[in-house]
């Protein structure tokens, strides 16, 4: 658990972070979102003491971070930044092994861990372990960046616009990957982004920041349904809130289940049970159909969702 209590950070005369209070529960993904210069990166960098805070208290698992050795603190916090920050003179494997080596793990344990993490992040160890960062694509390099952060199994993950420099398709893939990994490893994560869609997709709770203050700290659904101010309302998009809410809802919640699963009819478009309601609506609209079949991960048809139900659910 990370607690920020009345934390302020000044750069000379300017106040970058203005008396914020924020509690991040163990295992949740807290996304700090806001335009550039709103203080979100500053907040993140204060948590691992890359920046000292001017006033207030920051507690990690109840302990004041100013009483801890900064290096020890950081070794227990994975850190991922935009543009990866991979060391160019180290191979992929050596980069991932950075923190375990700092912690002086035995070699066999490090090798096993590197192998495990590369597999977890869908990087073929055989093909990529001995490459240098410049020989990777942007998406692969950022996967290595995430693997490096997870290497010593830290309790906390700090991510500073990690996918900001990637193209839309790669970014989308990595976001899905992150959701998958988060389900497996359950790290307490602080994630900074300026992209509200990314925030809505990844967060368990979002903190909207502007001019050094936290305007609203709530679940994605509550932020969409009940924005606390005009700024938040504009940020989430006043007009297409309906569709964004649908993106948050899974098909599973609105479908009508069959009594028994069956093979889907060939040639008919289907949605998966954990796809978003928004995707189901899109298919229904495009095909002019009244309903669309829902399949599970094994490809068995387990139910269907109707246009009428989708429209109700989105409200």
């Amino acid at each position, binding site marked *: 658990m990370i607690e920020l209590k009345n934390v302020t950070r000044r750069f000379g005369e300017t106040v970058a972070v203005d008396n914020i209070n924020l509690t991040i529960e163990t295992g949740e993904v807290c996304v700090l979102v806001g335009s550039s210069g709103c203080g979100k990166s500053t907040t993140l960098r204060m948590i*691992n003491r*890359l920046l000292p805070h001017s006033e207030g208290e920051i507690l990690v698992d109840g302990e004041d971070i100013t009483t801890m050795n900064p*290096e*020890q*603190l*950081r*070794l227990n*916090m*994975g*850190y991922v*930044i935009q*543009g*990866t*920050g*991979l*060391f*160019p*003179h180290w191979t992929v494997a050596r980069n991932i092994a*950075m*923190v375990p080596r*700092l912690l002086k793990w035995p070699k066999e344990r490090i090798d096993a861990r590197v192998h495990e993490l590369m597999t977890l992040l869908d990087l073929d160890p055989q093909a990529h372990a001995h490459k*240098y960062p*410049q*020989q990777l694509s942007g998406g692969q390099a950022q996967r290595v960046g995430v693997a*490096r*952060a997870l290497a010593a199994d830290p309790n906390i993950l*700090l991510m500073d616009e990690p996918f900001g420099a990637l193209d839309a398709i790669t970014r989308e893939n990595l976001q899905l990957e992150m959701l998958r990994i988060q389900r497996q490893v359950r790290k307490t994560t602080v994630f900074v982004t300026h992209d509200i869609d990314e925030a809505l997709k990844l967060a368990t709770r979002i903190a909207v920041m502007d001019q050094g203050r936290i305007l609203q700290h709530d679940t994605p659904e509550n932020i969409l349904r009940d924005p606390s101010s005009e700024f938040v309302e504009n940020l989430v998009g006043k007009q297409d809130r309906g569709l964004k809410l649908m993106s948050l809802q899974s098909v599973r919640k609105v479908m009508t289940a069959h009594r028994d699963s069956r093979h889907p009819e060939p040639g008919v478009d289907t949605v998966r049970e954990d796809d978003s309601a928004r995707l189901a609506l899109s298919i229904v609209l495009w095909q002019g159909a009244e309903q669309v079949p829902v399949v599970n991960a094994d490809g068995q048809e387990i139910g269907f969702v109707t246009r009428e139900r989708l429209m109700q659910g989105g409200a």
Partner: protein
Amino acid sequence: MSVPHSGFIADRPNRVIPALGLLALALVWILDFGVIQPNRIVSGTGHGLWSALGWPGAAVVTVVLAGAILLSIARIPKRYLLLLGLIGASLAALPLLLEVFAGRHLPADAPYARSSIGAGFWCLLFLLSLMLIEVLGRLRTGHWLQLFLLVALSGSWLLLFRGDGLESLSLVREFSARPGKFEQALYTHLALALGAVSISACLAFGLALKMTRSPAWQRPILALVSFLQTIPSLAVFGLLIAPLSALSSAFPVLQAMGIRGIGWAPALLALIAYSLLPMVRNTFVALTEVPESLADAGRGMGMTEKQLFFQLRLPLALPVIIEGVRITTIQAIGLTAVAALIGAGGFGSFIFQGLGQAAMDLVLLGALPTIALALLADALLTMLAASLKPTPATA
């Protein structure tokens, strides 16, 4: 870098080697190949290729050059390997031509007569070396083969010059007239140049570190080392004489150590002062060019500043630092020759003696090894820097 298929390169006729070969052919026939002097000072009579070597020798030279030209434009597989063999062997055997020349023209009854090398021979040597470099470039040879060639060529030349056939050569005469002096000059020269480079490398490293840590020091330090570089070298040597003599007469300990107004002490100090600028600049630039985002990532992962320095900044900076050492070493080897003026010894002493006695061959005896040392240092340090490049070229 896109690398075309190697067969494609090999099939295209080479343009550099024919050009160099034709130039060599022309110059070797036009210029004097060797000179016969009745004694050390009097300028002698020149001999062209035909007269110097007779028709067999002239024919061999012409055929080898023509052969190299033909090979380089022929569409033969492995022609660059053949060229490497031909040119390498010619270079290794080049002193034999001087032996033939001396054997044909040196009067047997004149003990002071000597043969000396003409412009034609120098041009042949130079152009053949350029052709060899071109061939090595085309073959994309590794460093080890280049090093092997260097050792093989130097070894062959050393053997031939040590042999009996070339003792009439004026360079060899000057060498033999000074038994032990040449080795001594070599050691003094190397000790002065390398000593200055190592001391200034340590100093520069410290200064550059200071500059990266406290930016307020950047301008004064850079201004000081740049100022040192602007004083003419002779002036520095001269300027150091007075304070050092005063010091050594005031403290007999210094005198006992051999520190006087002239000699190695002022030379070493001046060489260090000169070496500081390239060293400090390269080290500082190399250390500051390591992207701060990388340091930030490392720090954020829990590295201490010391770990960041040794695992990130230093390895990334090393090739550029070595580049600074390379520039400085070449410069110091050249400047050490000038330091002979204040009695520091080294190859410069031959040069200045030769100038004083109007004996050009003695000048060459000092100048040629200086050039050779500089080239050798250049080659070795370039190889070192290349092998330290942290990452392979991107595929």
